[in-house]
């Protein structure tokens, strides 16, 4: 048993904790989320590079939301999302414990939002090289080419909303697309409705996207939709010096006005 499994076993045996949300090996060796309730199942837990899913999305699931004896094994995406969710009052201090990992692989217990916030400050917040390269490729396109690129991508979208379901920040019980009085966004999937949906999703994540890329990973059609929210995240950083997932205070770039902001219309 490795450290994590031992730790999990101890926590469950102690009786202070009843549920560990973490990762296990899934089909074909892929990592997937797992919910461990019994100490003898602790050996299912893994944590390695393959565990790149953002599992903060489970923290506010109705089934476990009010379970205060839960632990979440968090990769850095998950940690950032927890901070952002805390800022937006979707998770509450003390409702769960976080197991994070130091660079040397040591387990770090984080019990409060303050501790998580402090730990997150030590993490890397930019895009990966590969992601940055994709971003650049699209930014370098001419306006026409970029439009054609996205038009082609969106034409494949089947509106399964896996992007929405997998995003920890998409927690609205009734999404804008599902509000039909009035119907702002067309329900049947065709290119126009798809474009509106994805643009709106990106705008709703402005200043809130922690650039985990989970939406893109979740897409069964492999649309690079994470680039849309990345773009908005990069703009938030550039124009408002706001990086989502770094502060537990609600200071969303679009919600507050600072005298040094470029535009002064909100004054």
């Amino acid at each position: 048993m490795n450290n994590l499994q031992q730790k999990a076993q101890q926590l469950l045996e102690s009786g202070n904790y009843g549920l560990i949300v973490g990762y296990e090996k899934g089909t074909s060796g892929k990592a997937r989320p797992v919910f461990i309730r019994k100490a003898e199942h602790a050996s299912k837990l893994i944590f390695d590079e393959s565990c790149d899913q953002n599992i903060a999305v489970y923290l506010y699931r109705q089934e476990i939301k009010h379970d205060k004896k839960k632990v979440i094994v968090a990769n850095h995406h998950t940690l950032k999302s927890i901070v952002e969710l805390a800022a937006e009052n979707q998770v509450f201090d003390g409702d769960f414990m976080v197991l994070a990992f130091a660079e040397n692989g040591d387990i770090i217990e984080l019990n409060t939002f303050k501790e998580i916030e402090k730990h997150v400050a030590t993490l890397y917040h930019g895009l990966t090289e590969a992601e940055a390269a994709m971003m650049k490729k699209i930014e370098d396109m001419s306006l026409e080419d970029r439009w054609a690129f996205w038009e082609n991508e969106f034409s494949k979208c089947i509106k399964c909303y896996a992007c929405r379901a997998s995003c920890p920040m998409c927690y609205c019980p009734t999404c804008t697309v599902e509000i039909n009085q009035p119907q702002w966004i067309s329900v049947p999937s065709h290119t126009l409705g798809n474009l509106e949906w994805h643009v709106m999703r990106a705008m709703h994540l402005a200043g809130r996207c922690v650039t985990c890329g989970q939406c893109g990973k979740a897409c069964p059609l492999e649309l690079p939709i994470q680039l849309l929210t990345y773009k908005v995240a990069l703009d938030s950083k550039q124009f408002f010096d706001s990086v989502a997932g770094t502060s537990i205070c609600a200071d969303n770039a679009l919600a507050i006005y600072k005298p040094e902001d470029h535009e002064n219309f909100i004054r």
Partner: protein
Amino acid sequence: MARIGVFICHCGENISATVDCEKVAKVASEFPGVTVSVDYKYMCSDPGQNMVKEAILEHNLTGVVVSACSPRMHEPTFRNACAEAGLNPFLCEMANIREHCSWVHEKSDATTDKAIDIVRTLVEKVKRNEALAPIYVPITKTAVVIGGGVAGIQASLDIADAGHKVVLVEREPSIGGHMSQLSETFPTLDCSQCILTPRMVDVARHPNITLYTYAEIESVDGSIGNFNVKIRLKSKSLDEKLCTGCGACIQKCPVKKIPSEFEQGLGKRTAIYVPFPQAVPNKPVIDRVNCTYYIKGKCKVCEIVCPTKAIRFDQEDSFVEVQAGALLLATGFDVLKTNFFPEYGYGKYEDVIDGLAFERLASASGPTKGEIRRPSDGEIPKKIVFIACAGSRDPAKGIEYCSKICCMYTAKHAMLYKHKVHEGTPYIFYMDIRATGKMYEEFVRRAIEEDEVKYIRGRVSQVYEKNGKLIVRGVDTLLMGQAVEIEADMVVLATAGIASPGSEELAQKLHVSYDKHKFFSEAHPKLKPVETNTAGIFLAGACQSTKDIPETVAAASAAASKVAGLFSNDLLKRDPLIAVVKKCAPPLYSSCTGCFMCIPVCPYQAIDKEEIKDRSGNIIKTISHINPGLCQGCGTCVAFCKSKSIDILGYNHDQVCAEVEALLNEW
């Protein structure tokens, strides 16, 4: 089943000159849901309004669209007309085909088509309008007046005399403001303090006025009718109840060389002090920056000599919270100082002073007992050069505006100098003479003709010292730009009036808009000169722009009358066009996710949290709640809410979407 009446106004020729109103009426009559559609020359006229009323009664209309001018003009007119005919006024909408259409386009079919589009849009909206009831907010009949200069004093007295409570907040240890520093006032040359101090005493004695000096506004929330003002009472290191104002402490204070702010640095004061003898309240404060006890930890002479043991070294700042129905800003102005004028040697040469300092020199209660003496050596100056527009009307230095009072006070200064130093020669460099008040021009003429003040039209390029004299170099533009050089004993700069320090912070606390010079902005430069864009907050005096005393007093009384007008009702009637968080049936209760990101967005602090509880009191969820008394219906939260959980009554999503669809769809 909608039964909409559409009323197209020609507005004389204003609309009908470019829009075919008859056609608009005809096309509109075919819109689904439109029962009656007519056009008329002047809808706002009595016969026009009667057409609307009669149509409501005759056709049992469920909505009215008046297609005319901007709703800013006649919306109340037509809403009232509808109400008189028994239709809820909020079922009446204005389609603006004048400012939005006829005035901005040429006569053409396209213009008429646009008018038709506008009307259709509003028809679709009004179909979805709901009857709304106005909101009534109780009014707290207390006004907080910020600033105790002549404006604040006048306004406080007027409001208090009208029978309402006033809380007057002054930053300095005494009320009085700049007027208390002045010697004589133009154009009558009566003594400033002599006319002001009785009013100061009135303030102190008035049963309706609570005076807080040495106090600042900490925070303000709430809105018209119900502000909550938190005031910081800076520690005076004194128990005011015990202090009799005997002055023993001041006499014995060992720190005596502090430049007096009141005397513009020309006189000195002690560390425990009252700013001036007639101060109200006439009780000292300890200036902790200069007090030996606070610096070194010992002294306490004042405590020892105080007969009533009123000194409190450990006193801390305290806070009071005041509920107020209205706020009145009277924070006044300041004058430009320091190295704004390096070429004039201000700050470099002791004998280059500003106008306020000259007032103190000329004042009988001033440091020289009213004798005009040079600050440097106490000599009586033989020649004084007054430089008007020192900073004002100088775009290069960032102040384009005219400070308005300098022409007059400079003339007064020269005159006062001449009256006191008969052999002296006053020179005035000026750009233009602006003497537009009652008896003002006569006053200036008197300075020129009777007191022989030498006016030189031109600008001063440099002031420098040479052999104990101040050499003032300028040009006389009336002498074809001939260079002029005057050897002066003293130079007085009529420095520009600027916003009082701290104005910007205060404006932000109060959500009052201000201009680029940090003067507070009025709601309308002509029609609402003493209102701000924030309802319930009024302006008086020089905090808005520099003003002379009569103008300031007039503005103060005007603002006071606005407050008294507001307070003449027990309830404030407001349009119910406010935001609401949408609720729905359980188990969702509301689509609001409780992210509370709308809270910082709200410019009026109208949003707080609401807990939804089950029957046994357990919290099911916490959602946003909008205080109807505070919400101004600006819609910022609506735009920001991702889950579309907030609607503005009268402008809800359904209505706005219907308008957009009506515009986009081809019919």
